């Protein structure tokens, strides 16, 4: 299924780097996960008050997945679109679309799960209220074909 920008609620710019390209001359498949990691965590830092160095509750990843639809390459500028498909007490499932600047259809679509754990014990724990409030803003209803305000 083709995903477009209107399927996502929040966008983060991603600047590709020289070393993101592999032997094929396009961005290597693994690098997309680093874009996902970066976009998701930046959202938590900027909107949810996460401090990666000191917050008592941190997010760890139990699962990630990506479908690669079309190639992008350095020096392309990209946008990572975010939405939240599921929000539990201690976990969240993000869905991410990677878009070439100016392109409406996704080059890659991914999902990424965070479980929030106590930094010291690594036991799952309730996510902080500030993070929950930030994630609720991205929550979409499954099957909703008009998620953004377009």
């Amino acid at each position, binding site marked *: 299924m083709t995903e477009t920008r209107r399927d996502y609620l929040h966008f983060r710019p991603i600047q590709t780097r020289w070393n993101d390209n592999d032997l094929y001359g396009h961005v*290597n*498949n693994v690098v997309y996960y680093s874009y996902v990691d970066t976009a998701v965590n930046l959202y938590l830092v900027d909107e949810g008050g996460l401090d990666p160095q000191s917050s008592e509750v941190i997010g760890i990843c*139990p699962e990630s997945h990506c479908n690669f639809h079309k190639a992008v390459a350095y020096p392309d500028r990209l946008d990572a679109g975010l939405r939240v498909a599921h929000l539990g007490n201690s976990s969240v499932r993000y869905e991410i679309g990677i878009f070439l600047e100016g392109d409406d259809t996704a080059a890659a679509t991914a999902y990424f799960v965070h479980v929030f754990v106590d930094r010291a014990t690594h036991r799952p724990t309730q996510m902080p209220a500030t993070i929950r409030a930030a994630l609720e803003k991205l929550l979409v209803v499954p099957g909703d074909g008009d998620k953004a305000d377009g």
Partner: protein
Amino acid sequence: MAEADVEHVPGTRAAYPYSVDFATRWGDNDMLGHLNNVVYHRVFEDVVTRLTKFDLGVDWVNDAVYPVAIESQCRFHHELSWPETVTAALRIGRIGRSSVLYHVALFGEGKETAAASGRFVHVYIDRAGKRPTDIPPAIRAKLETLFG
């Protein structure tokens, strides 16, 4: 959907007949003191591409038909961290007309149960048109010999 559920259950080394060892590096750990999630995908890619180059004989630079990744997945069961040497292993899940599904897993040093498991799908495309095409017969034969 038994096939899709395979990676929910950490397998043992015996379930993955092809493997390579991978020395982790200082920079693979993130600030939480374990291998960053992205690195797991890097190691999955490593075992798949080693098989593709050394056992299937693919020459990415010159072959008219070659594989690209169209899908990957990882489920994280246990932490791995530098400086352990991890084992990346795979087995074939499905050989299609133009695609190969690999079930992949990572094992911590001295551990029998997978620390992570997932899937990695290659699709063979033709260099000129960049469209999916039949897996070359010689490569298909090698896949079937290795995993038949």
